[in-house]
């Protein structure tokens, strides 16, 4: 059977859907977990801060591939039947939460401490201080690096091919085995990732520039 260029491209584009779904899921759930982690990281009680810091250092100091393997082979030990998509989603969520919490911590700590003091002197409860005074300012700074992290997340999904999730890279390997046109297949694969990532990179850069410009 002959494969045309369009056959290869069409199948890769179909697989790109799963790369996009996985990226979005990782960002959504990672963002929620990362928000929780951020609260722990900034907590008054030291044990909470230490736990959050160790979690973040563990995920930033080990290969994502090992994290995926540990989820993929670890959950069955707990008696759970693990499909590749579940291990991929959970692994990326755990990793993304660590990175997002650390990015957002930087944004919160960039707000001058006087803002907390001023909010406290107005009689606001600590949660109100965070929600009404600190967060609106921190969010403004956080947008650009968060979009920048999405580029990293899209690229990270490529590793889930190794635990058997049929996203772009896995599909490219299968197509390559059928077509014996490795140069074309992997060049197209790279081009699709570039098309996914470059707009995010450009957006992050534009947002950062706008933030630096005087308001």
């Amino acid at each position: 059977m002959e494969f045309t260029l369009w056959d290869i491209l069409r199948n890769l584009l179909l697989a790109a859907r799963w790369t996009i779904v996985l990226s979005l899921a990782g960002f959504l759930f990672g963002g929620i977990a990362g928000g929780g982690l951020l609260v722990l990281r900034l907590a008054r009680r030291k044990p909470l801060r230490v736990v959050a810091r160790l979690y973040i250092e563990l995920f930033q100091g080990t290969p994502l591939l090992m994290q995926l393997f540990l989820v993929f082979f670890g959950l069955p030990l707990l008696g759970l039947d693990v499909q590749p998509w579940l291990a991929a989603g959970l692994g990326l969520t755990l990793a993304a939460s660590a990175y997002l919490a650390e990015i957002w911590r930087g944004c919160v700590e960039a707000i001058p401490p006087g803002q907390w003091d001023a909010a406290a002197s107005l009689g606001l409860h600590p949660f109100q201080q965070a929600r009404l005074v600190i967060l609106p300012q921190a969010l403004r700074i956080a947008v650009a690096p968060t979009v920048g992290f999405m580029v990293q997340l899209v690229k990270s999904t490529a590793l889930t091919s190794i635990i058997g999730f049929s996203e772009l890279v896995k599909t490219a390997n299968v197509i390559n085995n059928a077509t014996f046109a490795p140069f074309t297949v992997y060049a197209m694969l790279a081009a699709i990732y570039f098309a996914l990532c470059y707009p995010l990179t450009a957006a992050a850069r534009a947002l950062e520039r706008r933030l630096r410009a005087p308001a």
Partner: protein
Amino acid sequence: MGAGLDFGWLSEAGYVLAHGVATTILLIAVTTLLGGALSVVAAAARRGTVAWLRGLVAGYVELIRNTPFIVQLFFIFFGLPGIGLRLDAIPAAILAMTINLSAYGTEIVRSGLDAVTAGQREAGLALGLRARTVFLRIVLPQAVRAVYPALTSQIVITMLESAVVSQIAVRDLTYEADLIQSRTFRAFETYAVVTVIYLALSLLLRRVLVAGGRRVLGQGAG
């Protein structure tokens, strides 16, 4: 399957794991040297006077930073033979890691060059030094010192990403772990141990880089 964890295999796996660690260290050591040099050359070209070189470097940086490392690795190892360029696994891994590290390194060194005030260069030229000497002896050391912590982090990230080269059968730490777990059927325990080894390696690598930076760049670096 028994619920308990079993680390009995570990006593016989020491040599194999050590071999994997040695390969991983070799890969990152060579990559750091080659990638560091390429980053400086590319950053100089990015801020140089030749327009097409500036464009070439900008395109290279964007291309690499917007595609996954595993895709770069597969393109080099599986894709290039399609047009007659065949590399063995270890050279392919080192090439992919170097190209990847340098794309980030170029941007980091470039921002360092931008941070050195123009007066430094002008003062050097006013003393009658050659442009090349001014760059190598005056501007570059200050630039690298300013961004050394960022370079260190990027090298550690590259070491962690190198786990992927096991996929083209380079016998690094991850590859040895794959072999061990396929023999012992103790996948979780094997990867848990190897994850801890990677964590130790990343802490160690950071220390070595900071100490090396202090020695070469003087106090205050790292």
